[in-house]
């Protein structure tokens, strides 16, 4: 055991200082897609996207990051219009905020108060329960990565709990299959108030690829009220951490809607 202790100490501190210091993503990282030029787009641009994230209305492009699986098909087809940004902070508290360049009037969505606003004690110690409702399995890896020494979410007072009865935050992955709808609802119902729901990953935000296959509800918000959306296929650990801190009210900076 002593040897393990030395082995652990040998490496010094590798832990990120996020959110105190920004955590830059490596160059070339596919964090989100930025629309450089929204005007004069041909209608067929819509067909470039396999998940229907790109819409063209009267020549103007809108990109729904809640549907985008970051495959890069649009970046390859129209590099003058679309470009990847290496950025981790992609989460937003409103679904509409994920739609980039939408010119049509969007209905005003209600933003739920953060956990910190609802209860002052819930800013420093938050217990998290994860439920998989039909992900591809990658999101689970990135959520679990939050406990490794590089992210160490315990330093921010974030803990996983086995029971939803002790949980303040529900992390949901996947577009919600029929078989998981009931177990998911039950887990949510037994959570004490105040509670928050995070939709983690593009599948959880909209169903992603699976939306058109008819077996999923098409996003967690079709089943439960969602506090924070974390798009990405899958979102990186820092992106999930950003979403958690957004729900807690510890950080307020949301994804830039550009």
């Amino acid at each position, binding site marked *: 055991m002593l*040897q*393990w*202790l030395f*082995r*652990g100490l040998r490496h010094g501190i*590798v832990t990120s200082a996020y959110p105190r210091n920004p955590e830059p993503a*490596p160059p*070339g*990282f*596919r964090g989100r897609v930025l629309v450089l030029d929204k005007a004069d787009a041909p209608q067929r641009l819509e067909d470039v996207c*396999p998940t229907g994230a790109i819409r063209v209305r009267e020549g103007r492009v809108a990109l729904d990051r809640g549907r985008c*699986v*970051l*495959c*890069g*098909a649009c970046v*390859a087809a129209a590099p003058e219009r679309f470009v*990847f940004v*290496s950025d981790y902070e992609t989460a937003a508290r409103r679904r509409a905020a994920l739609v980039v360049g939408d010119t049509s009037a969007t209905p005003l969505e209600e933003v739920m108060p953060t956990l910190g606003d609802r209860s002052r004690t819930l800013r420093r110690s938050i217990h998290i329960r*994860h*439920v*998989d*409702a*039909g*992900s*591809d*399995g*990658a*999101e*689970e*890896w*990135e*959520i*679990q*990565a939050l*406990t*490794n*020494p*590089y992210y160490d979410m315990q330093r921010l007072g974030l803990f*996983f709990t*086995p*029971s*939803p009865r002790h949980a303040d935050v529900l992390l949901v992955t*996947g*577009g919600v*299959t*029929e*078989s*998981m709808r*009931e*177990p998911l609802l039950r887990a949510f119902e037994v959570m004490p108030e105040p509670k928050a729901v995070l939709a983690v990953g593009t599948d959880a935000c909209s169903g*992603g*690829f*699976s939306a*058109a*296959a008819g*077996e999923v509800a098409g996003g967690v918000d079709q089943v439960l009220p969602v506090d924070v959306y974390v798009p990405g*296929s*899958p979102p*990186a650990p820092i992106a999930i951490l950003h979403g958690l801190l957004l729900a807690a009210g510890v950080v307020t900076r949301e994804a830039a809607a550009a």
Partner: protein
Amino acid sequence: MSAERATGAATEPRQFLDGVSFEEEAALAPERRLRVAVEDVARATKVLLEAGGHFSGLFQPGSDSALRVLVALRGELIVLRAPLDGERSYPSLSRITPAALFPERELHDLSGIVSLDHPQLEPALRPNADELRRVVTGPETFVIPYGPIRSGVFEAIQYPIDTGGEDVLALSVRPYFKRRNLEQRFAGLSFEHGAYLAERIAGVASVAHALAFSQAVERAAGIEPPRVAERWRVVHAELERTANHLDVGIKLAEDAALSVGVSRLGALKEEVMRLRARLCGSRFGRGVVVPGGLGSEPLLSKGEVVRAIDAFERDYLRDRKLLLRTSSFTDRLIGTGALDSETIIRYGGVGPVARACSLGIDARLERPYGSYGRLGFRIARATSGDAMGRFEVRLEEIDQGLHMIRQAVEQTDSESNDFRRELPGADGEACGWAEAPMGEVVYWLALDGQQIREAHIVSPSLRNWPLLSESYRGDVLTDVSFIEHSFGLSPAGADR
């Protein structure tokens, strides 16, 4: 009965289908297509399995209403095609091999085709978590519905465990809680979009799925990707394997309450994930493998990759040595969840689960694809068949993987910028395969010019899962998580 042959078939009539009449149809080696009558399909499968074949899959494409049975035999992939001709039933394959149990239930749910005398032909694809079936009945036994939501960050799957309190009397496996119907989603997609979807079937094996898919398209189109692209594919596939095997290590160390071990292995896995992100922009190697070659050029130079691999290996070897000397860890694995090679063969098991029973089942060597035929490596094997054996296989595969990455990177020509070949249209059907970290994944595709007409996936996780029920011989409840994690399977991949 006499063996018939299609005129012009290049190979000699094979003895292995003796006693069953069949007709050989044209196919690109090492695939072999044999047409049999639907009433003979079970008998033909039996003959192939008795000849040393390994059952891999069963499905029915909607486009031509004929059953397909896939069997791997001596370096070839035999595709039996049995036209239904209006029949709605066929003799059950589950009576011959338990590997067909789940595929036959799937087939029944999706197309209503009945496998005659299937032992349990009930709906599978939309399980209800509350409906439990007792396997063992007795006054002092009960069922623990373990899942679909379990403690910890795990994917959804249910294991109803029959127990008397401590001993595991029986453990059933109920997949499909997260079935997203993604095979059907392939219909009408372009080749490139199809690769992006394949990456999202089993997210932790994105590269392997994209490889199997892309190789099926490439084989149908009759092209080979540039050599340099094939080498980079190896780099990504082996990094993926390393990350998956380390993930199994993390979960096992967590089960053994070895927290520093969890941290160290977690750090090692994170280093691999970060290397992958620096190399291609995705922590899961997504967007790299597309039909025709690479979807994006490597963002790191040869030297940078080799340096990163060297640094990783130095750390990894120290942790590995320490881990294998920690008896509180190894004691929990030795003798736990033991399987023997006959059971593995009977169930058509693949991947590290099979290799831990000293079976040489590995698609990279059975039917070499891409650069694997030109790289020097050996199959990692263990003889014990238990959780420890499976873990040892994984550790050796990490060593071999790092070795292959160095070889592949050394051979990449830094001047060559030809990463992708133009794909002509392709028609007809073709299979593609790749050795994913959990075992061989096979894609069967029907193509229509520049589009996918239909896709079926033979998932290694679904093939191995029934073996989990077989691996409880005198084990207790606290062994359940060790055995499950030592299998290292992907619910998303099994459910599709």
